[in-house]
């Protein structure tokens, strides 16, 4: 079976190089050269003059997308619930920030936005104002055709009240403009190296890629998170072979957005993305032959 998913890169992968050794154009040239056709950005990092970029910057962005033949995939933003010390943002305030970003996402050509929400528990249950914020945002999302896709990130499991509540919103409203972004870190099987005391590392949740199948109709984007690609083209912590088999078999057609989160040596992202894409190529060939 031939995979239907596409390859993208989030510019987060170039953290450490962006604005030090690489400009925005360098990053886009780099990921296009590696074979990506989609690009994901972090609003507050990669948009000069955020939240009010100049028309010249927007024209520059559009010219770069055309030059490197890239599709804008997901616009990552934040609802900083602890913005004001001593209290959390109201639903109205959260909505104002979300809509500001939604309009900017639309202006830059994105069809998906990932608001990172403030959390109230250790397993990342979002601030309860999210529901009112999201319901009131949906008419705008439909009008601008931007899907709102909160991220399911370790240590949040798939079987959780958080995910159930997101799916409940979709079921109750019937919207096509709300869904999930899955961070592949939830499938982590082992640690890259034994954590030192006091280090926070993403835990091993015991979630199998197959467990994703019932959720896939709502999954619009995947962060292909990784910490290290070896010279043997292996990622030691996340079972990408199983994940790619599931995505291929289920004919999932979204973007796998490469998200390198390892050591930040100069040009590490450039090297690591290529190794990951080479691994994906091998795995996809194996899946196609199966």
């Amino acid at each position, binding site marked *: 079976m031939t995979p239907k998913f596409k390859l993208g890169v989030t510019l987060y992968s170039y953290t450490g190089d962006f604005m*030090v050794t690489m400009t925005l154009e360098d990053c886009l040239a780099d990921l296009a050269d590696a074979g990506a056709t989609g690009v994901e950005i972090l609003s507050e990092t*990669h948009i000069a003059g*955020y939240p009010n970029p100049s028309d010249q910057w927007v024209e520059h962005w559009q010219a770069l997308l055309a030059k490197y033949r890239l599709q804008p995939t997901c616009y990552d933003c934040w609802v900083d619930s602890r913005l*004001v010390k001593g209290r959390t943002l109201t639903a109205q305030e959260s909505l104002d920030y979300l809509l500001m970003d939604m309009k900017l996402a639309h202006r830059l050509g994105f069809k998906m936005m990932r608001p990172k929400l*403030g959390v109230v528990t250790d397993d990342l249950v979002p601030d309860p104002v999210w529901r009112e914020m999201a319901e009131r945002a949906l008419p705008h999302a439909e009008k601008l055709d931007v899907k709102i896709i909160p991220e399911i990130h370790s240590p949040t499991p798939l079987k959780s009240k958080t995910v159930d509540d997101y799916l409940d919103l979709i079921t109750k409203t019937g919207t096509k403009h709300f869904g999930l972004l899955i961070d592949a870190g939830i499938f982590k099987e082992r640690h890259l190296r034994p954590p030192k005391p006091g280090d926070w590392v993403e835990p091993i949740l015991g979630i199998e890629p197959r467990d994703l199948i019932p959720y896939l109709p709502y999954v619009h984007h995947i962060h292909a998170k990784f910490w290290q690609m070896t010279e043997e083209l292996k990622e030691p912590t996340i079972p990408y072979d199983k994940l790619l088999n599931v995505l291929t078999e289920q004919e999932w057609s979204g973007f796998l957005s490469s998200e390198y989160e390892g050591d930040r040596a100069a040009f590490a992202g450039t090297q690591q993305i290529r190794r990951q894409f080479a691994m994906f190529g091998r795995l996809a060939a194996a899946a196609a032959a199966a």
Partner: protein
Amino acid sequence: MLEKDMIQERGFKNLFADGRAVGFQVRIRTPYYRGIWASLLEGAEVTVDGQKFSPEEVKWTIGDKTYTLAELEKASNVRWPFEEAATLTVPKSGGLSAGLHKIEVCMLYRASYIPESLGLWPMKSERTITLVH
């Protein structure tokens, strides 16, 4: 463009008033992976050659405006852009001598998507940089 380290060598200077050195300035880029609203900052402790200055003593210049720690707390509509270094101003009578100085910066900010039980993650850097004159 920025230097990779949070502590920037460019911009390291004494601050003069009425012809006398009254302190020094050091620029820092955000050590976080995104630009933020200034009210999310919880200040920075600066240590020079072992002498500590508390977050309350350190003033921040972001863009063309200067803020005390108390003023930063209210600056929820001020951006500290990812691509721009902020200037930290530290009061020190007589300033610093020309030459190499070991600077340490420990900066704190709130990240709303991280459980509060984990506390604030101090972002620290230490670098020996040169004050030209």
